């Protein structure tokens, strides 16, 4: 071995010991997607082999030396129909199989745990329901469906976990979602795969899949003291949302209790389901989302709340299961220290008629 240069030797050792050809399968969907992947690999290999065999055997059999005079042939409808219909049939199988997997990846089950992820130049910020924040990391329990609700604060980003075979674009101004169920504990790559500017290649992190027990420990050790909904509740109060959205009989805005998931009739006559996206839109451009029977008096909060803040509000409103919670918030406002009320951008809570003037 002494005659091999050390650099080359190192390279060879690295090659032999670090020879990855296929990413780990660490989620429920991964083996299903890989089955289809290998099916297409197989079809491709067969197709390529046929083409190579045809070209080389014809080249040998009908080279000018062996076959000096060409025989003119117009074509053959039968043969041409064969190589039209067989590929078409195979492609259609792949289409159906692929569509089944696609719908599975982007249709989260109802019992999935929701984690919000905000992408911004150049980091990923995850907001857990328990109030835990993470930057460029995502801790998840195994064997439990996790739904990610993604949004970008600036440009397009894309949240990719190759080991789980999932990926979803984080789009400015719109929620997108994807779900997965991790199966093997471990640490996996997290990439931003949509080119997003200077530090695109540094917008990476890790996804840590943990056993439920470890996950509980992690949750306890990284708590910030209040849950995401509680953060939202505080914001709800400090922005004086409750001045109108309360349960008083003379309330100027509709009560938000149980609003999440319900069907709303808008002043335009449209009926709409109040989901995450709707609540976000209603906060940022309220004039286009007036519930029937209410005056269009709500000011826009565009530019006043960060995406993180909107997420906290959405999470809070999601969890408003009864008027009792709103009542509580109303009382909380009165207890709010003066300083916190002023810290909010439009936090003038003029008694009773707390409309935000901006």
């Amino acid at each position, binding site marked *: 071995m002494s005659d091999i240069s050390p650099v080359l030797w190192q390279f060879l050792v*690295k090659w032999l010991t*670090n020879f990855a050809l*296929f*990413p780990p399968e660490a989620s429920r969907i991964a083996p299903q*997607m890989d089955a*289809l*992947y290998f099916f*297409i690999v197989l079809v*491709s290999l067969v197709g*390529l082999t046929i*083409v190579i065999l*045809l*070209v080389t055997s*014809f*080249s040998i059999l*009908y080279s*000018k030396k062996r076959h000096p005079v*060409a*025989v*003119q*042939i117009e*074509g053959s409808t039968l*043969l*041409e129909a064969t*190589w*039209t219909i067989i590929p*078409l049939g195979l*492609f*259609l199988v*792949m*289409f159906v*199989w*692929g*569509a*089944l*997997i*696609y719908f599975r990846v*982007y249709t989260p089950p109802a019992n999935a745990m929701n984690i919000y992820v905000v992408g911004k130049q150049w980091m990923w910020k995850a907001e857990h329901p328990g109030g835990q924040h993470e930057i460029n990391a995502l801790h998840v329990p195994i064997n439990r469906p996790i739904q990610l609700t993604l949004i970008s604060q600036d*440009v*397009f980003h*894309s949240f*990719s976990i190759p080991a789980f*075979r999932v*990926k*979803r*674009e984080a*789009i400015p*101004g*719109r929620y997108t979602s994807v779900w997965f169920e991790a199966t093997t504990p471990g640490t996996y*790559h997290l990439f931003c*795969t*949509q*080119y997003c*500017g*200077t*530090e*695109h*290649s540094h917008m990476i992190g890790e996804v840590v899949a943990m056993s439920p027990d470890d996950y509980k420990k992690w949750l306890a050790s990284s708590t910030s003291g209040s849950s995401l909904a509680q953060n939202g509740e505080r914001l709800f109060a400090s922005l004086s949302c409750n001045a109108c959205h309360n349960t008083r009989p003379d309330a100027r805005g509709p009560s938000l209790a149980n609003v999440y998931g319900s069907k709303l009739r808008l002043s335009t006559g449209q009926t709409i389901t109040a989901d995450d996206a709707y609540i976000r839109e209603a906060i940022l451009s309220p004039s286009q989302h007036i519930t029937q029977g209410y005056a269009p008096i709500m000011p826009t909060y*565009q*530019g006043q709340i960060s995406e993180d803040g909107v997420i906290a509000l959405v999470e809070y409103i999601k969890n408003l299961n009864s008027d009792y919670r709103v009542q509580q918030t109303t009382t909380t406002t009165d207890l709010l220290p003066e300083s916190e009320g002023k810290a909010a951008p439009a936090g003038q809570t003029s008694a009773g008629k707390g409309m935000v003037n901006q």
Partner: protein
Amino acid sequence: MSTTIVTLPDQSTARIPKMNYLSKENGLLSWLLTGDHKRIAILYLISISFFFFIGGALAGLIRLELLTPQSDLMATDTYNKIFSMHGIIMIFFFLVPSVPATLGNFLIPMMLGAKDLALPKVNLLSWYLYIAAGILALYAMITGGVDTGWTFTTPLSTHYVNTNVITTGMAIFIAGFSSIFTGLNFIVTIHKMRAPGMTWFRMPLFVWAHYATSILMVLGTPVLAIALVLVVLERTVGIGVFDPAKGGDPLLFQHLFWFYSHPAVYIMILPGMGVISEVISTFSRKRVFGYTAVAFSSVAIAVFGFFVWAHHMFIMGISNYSVLIFSLLTMLVAVPSAIKIFNWAFTLYKGSITFETPMLYAFGFMGLFTIGGMTGIFLGTSGVDIHLTETYFIVAHFHFVMVGGMLMAFLAGVHFWWPKMTGRMYPEKISQLAALVTFIGFNLTFFPQFILGTLGMPRRYASYPPEFQVLNVFSTAGATILGIGYLLPVLYLTWSLKYGEIAGNNPWQATGLEWQTQSPPLTENFVELPIMDHEAYDYEWLERQKEKEVASVG
């Protein structure tokens, strides 16, 4: 020399014809003000080769940076600019005009038996627009470059970068008009300038492929122009079409952009397919198997090509049902390509095959395009696309189609028609070697990238996790070999301009009308108006012609 060159004249007495399109007028002005489609083709050939080597040098820098996992050769910003400029130059200044503006320009009138394109001045204008656009793009590159990627994704390009987006955008806008004019010229010429007897189904498949390409150019490019103007307006006056804060939709840009840029892929590959049809027929001395199917598959690709653009956006939050439709249409557009591959393979059946350089490149094309096409099916399959999109799998896929396909076809065509364009042969042995080197270098460069993509390595990364290094080293090594493969033709083709053997009218014994006149051709192409009295690729007709000549002389 190879034994197939049947009529290569005796070298001691052979002369290049005194009167030809090259010798007719001299001086720089006679070139810059020419209306001759052949001279414009040569102008294009020189200019696109220039841009190809700039784009190639940028590719070399990309591969050098990726030799190591850290971004150590250059800052990430520089890397971003380099891959952006590599894409912009290679796509808009090399691939789109490559075959149509050079070989298409030179050959379409000759194949149809016409004196020139229908609109010679528009043809020259298209070259000037191309040059203006090229200079603007180079200016943008030298004065700071652009780092949006060739895709100009909003809102990154409109609100978040501070580089020469407007200048580059305008350069592409102008280059777009150059390509619209070329397409328009071809459509008019093919409809109106065919020689007597040249019916639609007697046209060479090269012309059919260019007809399909021209339709794509004329209908698709304006949409790109609109998208770019909107980006410029968004940057300068903030009209807000793509800005969610003003009620715009950032996804709209992608719809507009890909509405051009997917058909653009076919603009880039269809003319190459035309070249392959000519080359395979000539060197197997056989009519292309299923002429009509191959002709219509070009048109089918052009038509379906307009309805698959959203397959670039499967993970971007378009509705699941539109994913369904676009995935299905993508499967349909793949079928005509499969038809073409099998028809070419069966053209060889019972032929009388020889293996000159153009044929070697054509074989390379068939292998690499099959891989490129099949990996397109991976990406058209919506479920698998989730994992593979935005990774090196995409990079490998489109390089197999664009470089393995189109560039191989371009080189096949340049070698094939070199004797016609210059009157001299290229040196056979070294060019066969170059074809082989290109093939090996190409596979070594781009095949490892399929594995990298499957492993999840994202594209457009200046640095990457260390476990991907080994495959990247292979890729960079391959790129070095590939670079040599591309430099060789420049050297020996230039050499052959002076020292190449005299080719004669029809060194390959090909049937196209372009071969039935002198090389290099007269400015008017033909001495008398040709009359097409036989089908395309009729080798028996060619034999009878030769017998007639012998009879009349002897």
